[in-house]
């Protein structure tokens, strides 16, 4: 892998983590002293992606703006890696008029037509529409692809199986990416899934399946490159599963009492590990790291500033945009 690609992967992951740390700060800032989920500038549920950056960075590096991406209730890292407008995304998370959905969708329902990005709060719900984007691309004769991100828990949902079968049957240009962060809220993968690797499920649908271990961004990059190339070449879908890490709770406010390995989780953070690897390779220096982080902070704080200074949607407009 060339140096530029490796640095770009690192940059994207740093931007994503910086973003999630800022959202974490903003989310909790006005919910004290006791956590009140409905209070503050960013009320409601919040599902942050710290620890899962390698999946987003490694896959989206191969995508163009006109490739479609469907994501889950934990979408920020994927949106950032795919190039969704950070200002509008943040405004939407803050429920502002200038947001991607004019404040009507919120953090789990981000829609960006410019990058063909969408996400959903219903488990596995993004897989069938991903087959639809892929179907359209196939019919239109382009080499565009669709990527559906989902969780290891979602692989037990009916929509997952239907979508894989249909995509395989019609050889649709779609890549299914499972983020196995081991936890479906509080239920471990071992307690929910009959087999040890969802990648093995690909065989049931006659498509290639690959599991990537160790949350390794470069291994994700390589596997995703092959899968996306297959799809662009008209060879049909692929299933990838990445063993990744949910650094924080399922949602903010999750005490994670059910998680026995909690103490050692921070030690498995993929970003310091990759930083060390690139430093050893002579690609990163402390100065470069500092400047990348500063850049990320500046970009993120600009987006948050944009959101906070944007108007709240007027109540009289609550009934608008139901229909086109």
């Amino acid at each position, binding site marked *: 892998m060339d140096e530029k690609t490796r640095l770009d992967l690192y940059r994207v992951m740093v931007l994503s983590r910086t973003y999630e740390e800022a959202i974490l700060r903003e989310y909790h800032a006005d919910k004290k002293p006791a956590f009140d989920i409905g209070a503050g500038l960013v009320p409601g549920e919040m599902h942050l992606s710290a620890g899962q950056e390698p999946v987003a960075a490694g896959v989206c590096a191969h995508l163009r703006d006109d490739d479609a991406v469907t994501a889950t209730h934990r979408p920020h890292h994927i949106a950032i890696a795919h190039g969704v407008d950070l200002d509008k995304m943040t405004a939407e998370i803050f429920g502002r008029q200038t947001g991607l*959905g004019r404040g*009507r969708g919120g953090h789990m329902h981000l829609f960006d037509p410019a990058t063909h990005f*969408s996400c959903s709060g219903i488990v596995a*719900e993004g897989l069938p529409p991903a087959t639809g984007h892929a*179907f359209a691309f196939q019919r239109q004769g382009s080499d565009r692809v669709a990527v559906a991100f989902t969780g290891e828990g979602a692989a037990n949902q009916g929509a997952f199986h239907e979508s894989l079968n249909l995509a395989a049957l019609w050889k649709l240009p779609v890549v299914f990416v499972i983020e196995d962060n081991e936890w479906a809220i509080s239920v471990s993968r071992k307690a929910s899934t009959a087999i040890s690797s969802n990648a093995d499920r690909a065989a049931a649908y006659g498509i290639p399946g690959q599991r990537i271990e160790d949350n390794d961004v470069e291994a994700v990059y390589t596997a995703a490159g092959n899968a996306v190339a297959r799809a662009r070449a008209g060879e049909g879908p692929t299933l990838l599963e990445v063993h990744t890490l949910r650094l924080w709770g399922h949602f903010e406010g999750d005490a994670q009492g059910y998680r026995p390995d909690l103490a050692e989780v921070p030690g498995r953070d993929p970003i310091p590990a990759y930083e060390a690897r690139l430093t050893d390779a002579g690609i990163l220096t402390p100065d470069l790291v500092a400047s990348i982080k500063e850049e990320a902070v500046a970009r993120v704080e600009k987006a948050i500033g944009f959101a906070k200074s944007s108007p709240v949607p007027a109540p009289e407009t609550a009934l608008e*945009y*139901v229909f*086109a």
Partner: protein
Amino acid sequence: MSVTDSAATTASAPAARKLTTARAIAEGIAQEMERDTSVFVLGEDIGKYGGIFSATTGLLDKFGPERVIDTPISETAFIGLGTGAAVEGMRPIVELMFADFFGVAMDQIYNHMAKICFESGGNVRVPMVLMMAAGGGYSDAAQHSQCLWGTFAHLPGMKVVVPSNPADAKGLMISAIRDDNPVVYMFHKGVMGLPWMAKNPRSIAPVAEEPYETPIGQAAVAREGGDATVVTVSLSVHHALDVAEQLSAEHGIELEVIDLRSLVPLDREAVLTSVAKTGHLLVVDEDYQSFGLSGEIAATVAETDPGLLRAPVRRVAVPDVPIPYARSLESAVLPTRERIKAAARELVGA
């Protein structure tokens, strides 16, 4: 005024040749597929079989398997596929074989297809038609006889149209395809004019040959009358018209029959205008009685001007019971002509 006149006035040529409702739907789809290459059809048995209720007969021969696609039994997947393709600018017509089957895929329908426009602040559109067969009366029992339009109409973000006759069926299908919103298009099996099911004579009627749109959200006055307003939809329109003819001949009672044609948007004005004239309201609905369409019509009058009513609202609907198999039981729960006639007579005190 006959049921077909309303459609004839929106067509530009005299409607001389007749079609069944099923053929009219297929013709509407075919004409749009000719006009717009982004229109395609998918669903179970809609290709070679032509649709279980013949709504897509002839399309495969005309347009080929690339645009008329038989799917596996995967409603969640193929309805979701329709949504994704629509977001990318295609115009899918997805058939759900029976409305009763919505359960296996309702998430994709009401939570995704219907909400994308709103959640995206109008930035993303889903120009999709979800068509489905509905209704009973031929002993298909509890899981294959439901109407369920109340359920779809209740949930925001999808238009709901329910044609009662061939001319409206074609015009509403063309309008639905051209609409940039998700449109749930529900056709009662009993109005399709199928050779293998008891036929209502009005299921075969003149249909203009060229393409035309029937406006979504606009009711039709199927019959004018001054004594009582019957608000209804789908097959019940035919029953109401039959009863109206009888009551006129036998008792000199003149019923006004309003064919709603669309539930979302709902033409409340048409209801209010008629009730203002007659002072009496009977709602006939083959969907379940409680928490649905009939209550919505009653509420429309009650919250606008209850003084319009000279008698309480009457409803003839399917009671809150699963539809029974035995014919004697099924005909006891459906909104039959007998029940409609009795309710209308009671309503006007005749």
